């Protein structure tokens, strides 16, 4: 018996020692001096100095990024990133893309990139856990339904409430449908593809999505669907921003670059090229 006790105590003490050893290893020398290289492409605070490492989802959807190919530069968001990189002094080949899921972008912990973008909406609630860049685009929302749907003739929110709704998780669409349109029992899908599959399968009658996406989806991917109307802006949804790990120090520098390309009209050009709206779509505002 006493031998067993000794064995148990021995194992426990080994464990305790190893724990404290690990604890001590984690204490790293802190306090970095300000260098002349800050706010240049060789900024040591970058994930990989000399490179701008940017995360986005997989897949990425047009017109935000075309052909699921961020490095191609075709599309609004990757076009924006390349313009920003140029403004900050990076060469085109110094922009590195990595793919991450929605959740990987928002959980705490060291990230293997500088910032993530994929139409993340900025809201005050979310600021508690991540840092956002300035707004780079603030889209309108569109109602999408199948061509034979009864809500094609909808004129008011009350008409819209009569049908079954669905939305994609992680977007601001669900909050919009529930809070602004006051629809109950909205089905919530994992991704945009599933939402449209449910629409085609007749499990939901309508969804909302950003107007640029809606234009693309109804024209190319799901021609059976069409845009019913444009909806008024949600004051809680501030628009799209890049997401940084909470406390990432490069955010101010990136924001300076973003302001500069907005002032130069680069963002307006990209908007005109990829996200052009259709003036003929009616708006339902109450």
């Amino acid at each position, binding site marked *: 018996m006493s031998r067993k006790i000794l064995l148990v105590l021995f194992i426990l003490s080994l464990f305790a020692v190893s724990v404290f050893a690990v604890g001590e290893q984690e204490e790293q020398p802190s306090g970095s001096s300000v260098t002349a290289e800050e706010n240049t492409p060789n900024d040591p605070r970058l994930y990989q100095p000399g490179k701008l490492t940017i995360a986005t989802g997989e897949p990425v959807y047009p017109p935000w990024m075309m052909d699921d190919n961020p490095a191609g530069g075709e599309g609004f968001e990757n076009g924006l990133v390349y313009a920003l990189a140029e403004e900050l002094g990076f060469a085109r080949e110094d922009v590195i893309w990595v793919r991450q899921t929605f959740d990987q972008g928002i959980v705490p912990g060291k990230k293997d990139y500088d910032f993530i973008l994929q139409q993340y909406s900025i809201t005050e609630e979310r600021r508690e856990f991540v840092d956002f860049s300035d707004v780079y685009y603030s889209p309108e929302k569109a109602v999408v339904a199948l061509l034979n749907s009864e809500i094609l003739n909808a004129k008011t929110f009350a008409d819209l409430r009569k049908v079954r709704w669905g939305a994609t998780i992680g977007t601001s669409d669900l909050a919009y449908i529930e809070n602004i349109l006051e629809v109950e029992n909205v089905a919530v899908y994992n991704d945009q593809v599933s939402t449209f*599959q449910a629409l085609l399968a007749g*499990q939901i009658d309508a969804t909302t999505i950003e107007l640029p996406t809606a234009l693309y989806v109804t024209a190319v991917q799901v021609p059976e669907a069409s845009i019913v109307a444009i909806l008024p802006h949600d004051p809680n949804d501030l628009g799209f921003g890049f997401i940084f790990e909470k406390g990432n120090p490069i955010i101010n520098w990136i924001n300076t670059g973003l302001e500069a390309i907005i002032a130069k009209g680069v963002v307006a050009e990209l908007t005109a090229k990829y996200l052009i709206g259709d003036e003929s779509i009616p708006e339902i505002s109450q």
Partner: protein
Amino acid sequence: MSKVRPLFSKRMGRKLRFRDRYLPTIISVLSVTVVFFILRALVVNAEQWPRIEAQFFNISAMIEVFPKVLNGFGINMYIWAISLVVIAFWALILAVFRSLHGPWFAPLRVFSIIYIDLLRGLPSLLLVLLFGFGIPALQIPGLPQSSIFWGAIAMISSYSAYAAEVYRSGMDSVHDGQRAAAKALGLNQWQTLQYAILPQAIRNVIPSLLNLAVALQKDVALLSILGIRDAVREAQIYTARTFNYSSLITAAALFLIATIPMARLTDYVTKKDRERRLQRTE
């Protein structure tokens, strides 16, 4: 005159020395406590712990999301309960099909074998997607389009394949002598199944079936990909809106409250079952 002395008398029990009696308990309690505090120190001292605590263990967020997650959990339990009943019967039918002898029953046997191979071989997630999005998209008139319906069908199909194999193992575990005895009494194939094989087989496999029931209780959460707002999906919606993961802990707690009693029940039934078997061999 002389009484038979019981094997373990009270007097003998008192004779146990302190270290034999209490020391094992003391050591267990001590070691559990020490391990707990070491783990706790590890976690709490981690550099990222304050952020993890705020983002995953935020009490006010858990309370805020609780009514919605509970509502979603009701949907989980509803789908689970209905599926369970259907699976219990459908799997039994499949197992019986597979066990039938004679050339006339070949189609049923083949059906059962193919069914079990196919549905046990496919990941449940794929089945849920195929049934939940695929079949309604065919727009066949008369078939329901509800995602809960098709999601439940997917879970039932998959789990009945497992449960059928469990039933079959139970039927195989009934001694051949029982069949011979039933035959000697003049029972036909159906009667043998009904009165001799199945009652014993089902009793033998109840612990394994309960195990499957616990697994199903959690797997019902897969249906959230069909847009069904179950507990997990409600928690994810909250997370997606606020970037706060505490809602997932709320959902986890609800699942534990439901599954732990089931697990204890399974343990209890297994114990009873073992006692029953041991008595029989005496």
